């Protein structure tokens, strides 16, 4: 497969070519999806170095285990699954170690809006306090725009479990982000229910790109 052919091939074709020994196939697959996989790792772990390690571990695992891909899910689902599992493994190993908490690092966004940075840090700090299973569910569903069904495929749990994890995670976040002494939930204080005044969204930011997880036959 030439590099041009690689760029035209579907994800499934690339993975098959990689298993067959094509050296250009896996790098092309990585090139297509690495940024989204990086975002998943970074949002799940909230630590740049941990995310880098997890992403590397995941890609090595995908490289080695490509032959075990059965095709019962989209390649992107499979890749997301490997990354999420690598992240959750790191969280569980970190919890088992008597170390200081991992520092939270704000990814370079080029923004100089201090208030928006603070708000984003508040949300990320709150996210980091969630159990990793709830955090992973919210990263996939609310931050990466996956459907509940897609997230369930990535996490290999039932759809009801994804909804439940998201629900509990959001409820916890609502409590963590609520200013002290404020009664009720974020929406109870009026204003735009989608952007409650006490929980500041990042102004001027736009949601992430629509998810392409689960789309078979996707091409570059």
């Amino acid at each position: 497969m030439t590099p041009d052919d690689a760029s035209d091939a579907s994800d499934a074709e690339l993975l098959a070519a990689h298993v067959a020994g094509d050296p250009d196939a896996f790098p092309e697959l990585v090139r297509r999806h690495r940024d989204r996989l990086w975002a998943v790792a970074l949002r799940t772990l909230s630590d740049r170095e941990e995310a880098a390690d997890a992403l590397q571990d995941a890609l090595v695992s995908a490289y080695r285990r490509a032959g075990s891909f059965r095709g019962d899910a989209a390649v992107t689902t499979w890749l997301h699954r490997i990354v999420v599992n690598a992240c959750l493994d790191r969280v569980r190993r970190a919890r088992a170690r008597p170390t200081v908490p991992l520092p939270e690092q704000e990814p370079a966004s080029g923004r100089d809006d201090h208030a928006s940075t603070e708000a984003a840090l508040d949300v990320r700090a709150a996210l980091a306090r969630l159990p990793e299973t709830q955090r992973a569910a919210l990263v996939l569903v609310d931050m990466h725009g996956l459907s509940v069904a897609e997230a369930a495929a990535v996490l290999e749990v039932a759809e009801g479990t994804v909804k439940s994890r998201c629900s509990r995670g959001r409820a916890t976040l609502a409590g963590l982000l609520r200013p002290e002494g404020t009664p009720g939930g974020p929406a109870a204080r009026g204003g735009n229910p989608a952007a409650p005044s006490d929980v500041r969204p990042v102004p001027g930011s736009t949601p992430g790109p629509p998810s392409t997880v689960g789309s078979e036959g996707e091409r570059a």
Partner: protein
Amino acid sequence: MSDRDFFDDDLDDEALEDQRAVRALLSSLPDPGPVPPDVLDRINGTLRALQEEDAAHAATVSASGTGATVVPLRRRAAGHRALWLAAAAAVVLSGGGAVVSQLGSDTSARDTAASVAGGSASPEATSGAGARGVAPAEPGGHVYASGTDYRRADLVRKALALLAPGPRPFAAERPGAAGLLADPTTLTACVRAVGAAPANLLAADLATYEGRPAVVLVLTGVSGSAGGSGREVVVADRDCRPGTARRLTSVPVP
């Protein structure tokens, strides 16, 4: 699909609005952006090493003339393979015919290592005749399984010898004991666990210290080194991992 598909069915109106608010907030967070260049370089380097490993293995099996089907390394059992198996395949047998130590438990890797003499799949892995090592640990440093018994009196001298080219006395290392070095993630975690940065690792040697199983690490970038060289030799328990890592001793390099 309505947004109710994202929420539990049994939420009251107020709870549902809280859920919507949090979901909207999370979706409004800025995208982290592309993979940073340094992370990308590291990942690309790792993948290139994997491909070189596969290519070296395929070439070795082909050269054996057995006519056996070449099976890329990635089709073996799951689990991380030592990234430096390609270099292990180029191990030079010592003049005394010492048993080549292997990393990991894969027998084909042992066969590969034993069947190749001379050359190197990785320029960093071998240095001089009789030297035996493996490809650099991620992100840097030479990794050995010499079985040397280091003593306090000769710790620095022998550890620094790991950095020098030329023949070194190697002994057989029992298979499986190299588990620490077989997994770059584990070795990296060990280096961090003893308080150093993986990038500062110059060499690691699976050996013994005062008769006790240990891993000897030669590190650079040490500030306040008594000798001023900025280097340090750290000896840790063989079971060197976060939470259990223990420095048996550390000596600054003059």
